[in-house]
């Protein structure tokens, strides 16, 4: 599948109707989502045929993108049941399969090295300091058994800078849309 095609399909993914600011719910738009997952697959082979988890999946955009790029099994985890209901609707709309689990990323305790790849657009920690690091630490812990040490990644690199095209989502957003420069990171263990 071509990048353009993936981006266009992700355009059909519905986003939060009433986003919750305490959870830092921001939509992961088709532009950024398609580029993230496409690069994970095309440059690193991290998606196709793999078990992929989407941490803080919200409405399921990244997980759905992984399923469209032929991940063998996708698990989306979120703390918000309403977001998961939206993810369910989106999966049906795009005719992909994805497992959904209602859980707090902080409390996640999965057994063993089943997951090959974790993809995520984690909270940036703007509402609750350190939320971003909790997600990262959970992701590293759950891709391989025994990696329980704090952030013991073998490699960590910024792959590229992406444009996070963020539409006004909350009352305190004064502009109709802003572009935020964000980095796409890849960690391996």
């Amino acid at each position, binding site marked *: 599948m071509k990048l353009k095609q993936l981006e266009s399909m992700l355009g059909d993914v519905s986003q939060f109707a009433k986003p919750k600011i305490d959870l830092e719910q921001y939509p992961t738009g088709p532009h950024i989502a398609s580029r993230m997952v496409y690069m994970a697959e095309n440059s690193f082979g991290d998606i196709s*045929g793999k078990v992929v988890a989407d941490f803080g999946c919200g409405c399921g955009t990244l997980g759905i993108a992984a399923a469209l790029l032929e991940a063998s*099994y996708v698990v989306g985890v979120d703390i918000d049941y309403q977001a998961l209901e939206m993810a*369910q609707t989106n999966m049906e709309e795009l005719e992909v399969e994805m*497992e959904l689990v209602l859980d707090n990323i902080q409390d*996640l305790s999965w057994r*063993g090295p089943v997951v090959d790849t974790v993809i995520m657009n984690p909270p940036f920690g703007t509402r609750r300091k350190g939320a971003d690091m909790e997600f990262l630490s959970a992701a590293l812990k759950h891709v391989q058994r025994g990696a329980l040490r704090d952030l013991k990644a073998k490699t960590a690199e910024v792959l590229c800078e992406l444009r996070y095209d963020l539409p006004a989502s909350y009352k305190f957003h004064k502009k109709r849309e802003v572009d935020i420069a964000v980095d796409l990171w890849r960690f391996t263990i």
Partner: protein
Amino acid sequence: MRLLTHNMLSCNIKGVTKGFPLSIEVQKLDTKETDFNPDFLRNIIPKLEWKAFHDAAVSVGLNDIPEQVDPVMLEYTEFLQKFHHALLEVHLEEGALICPETGRRFPVTKGVPNMLLLEDEV
């Protein structure tokens, strides 16, 4: 929730040491066909807790999964198809997952297990 997910989940209540495997209480099952991919199945076997998978299969009414897996079985399409069906096609839609140590019930609603903990369990 499919059985591969079940094979990953464990009870995460603070202090629980034997939170795996969760036993399955079935209220409603569903079956959805998915593409058969023998390579994926062969790769996933070493990552599974086979006993837990076997017991889970029994609790969703599938009695044709052997108690132990032998590498030689991987050559048989018939085995792989049964394995594929149990692992990837059977969905627990309604029911619960129960912690083997504490008996805590984690409900499964519309296919989604609710693993959220209460305040005093964290």
